[in-house]
């Protein structure tokens, strides 16, 4: 079993839709949870960073963590064509100072 599972998509939705992106993980030691956005031919850009179960909101983005189910989600409200990118979940390994990434979900928002 992979340490992190993320549906690679591609996912295509109309502008204005609510988008749900998900990752599951198997390592109970993961305590921090991140979402990165990566545009084509660019580096990953940190979107959300949280360590507790529950929801964290930042503008149109909401990160949701369920530690008991080892499941995290990123919701995008009122999606825009500029949100078209690959979204990667990432988990810091404590004490090891490295990130374990999901495969990334490629998202396209159609005008």
């Amino acid at each position, binding site marked *: 079993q992979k340490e992190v599972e993320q549906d690679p998509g591609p996912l295509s939705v109309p502008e204005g839709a609510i988008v749900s992106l998900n990752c599951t993980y198997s390592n109970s030691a993961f305590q*921090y949870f*991140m979402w*990165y956005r990566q545009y084509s*031919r*660019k*580096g*990953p*850009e*940190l979107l959300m*960073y949280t360590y507790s179960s529950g929801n964290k909101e930042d503008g149109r983005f909401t990160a949701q963590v369920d530690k008991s189910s080892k499941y995290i989600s990123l919701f995008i409200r009122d999606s825009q064509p500029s949100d078209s990118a690959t979204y*990667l979940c990432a988990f*810091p390994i*404590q004490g*090891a*100072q*490295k*990130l*374990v*990434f*999901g*495969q*990334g979900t490629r998202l396209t928002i159609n005008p």
Partner: protein
Amino acid sequence: GAGVSQSPSNKVTEKGKDVELRCDPISGHTALYWYRQSLGQGLEFLIYFQGNSAPDKSGLPSDRFSAERTGGSVSTLTIQRTQQEDSAVYLCASSLGRNQPQHFGDGTRLSIL
């Protein structure tokens, strides 16, 4: 402010040649990381620096790969005797310190012919 800067942005070289990839972290960031991103493998950790020392080199795939960091700033990743499977995007990230969010550069796209 300036982000993480990587050079060159693209590199094409022949199999067997050595290549050097450079990373300039965000000013004041003491931690620096190298990752590799390829289609089949996703984003994989290579090496972590705290200051000039590398406490974790566990991701380097073979002894053809090495990295150094000088002055607590610029880092160089060197690949000797390149192979076709080394073709990938090499990404550098930096952070303020341990357990802090990592910020990435745009990578060097390496192609081995």
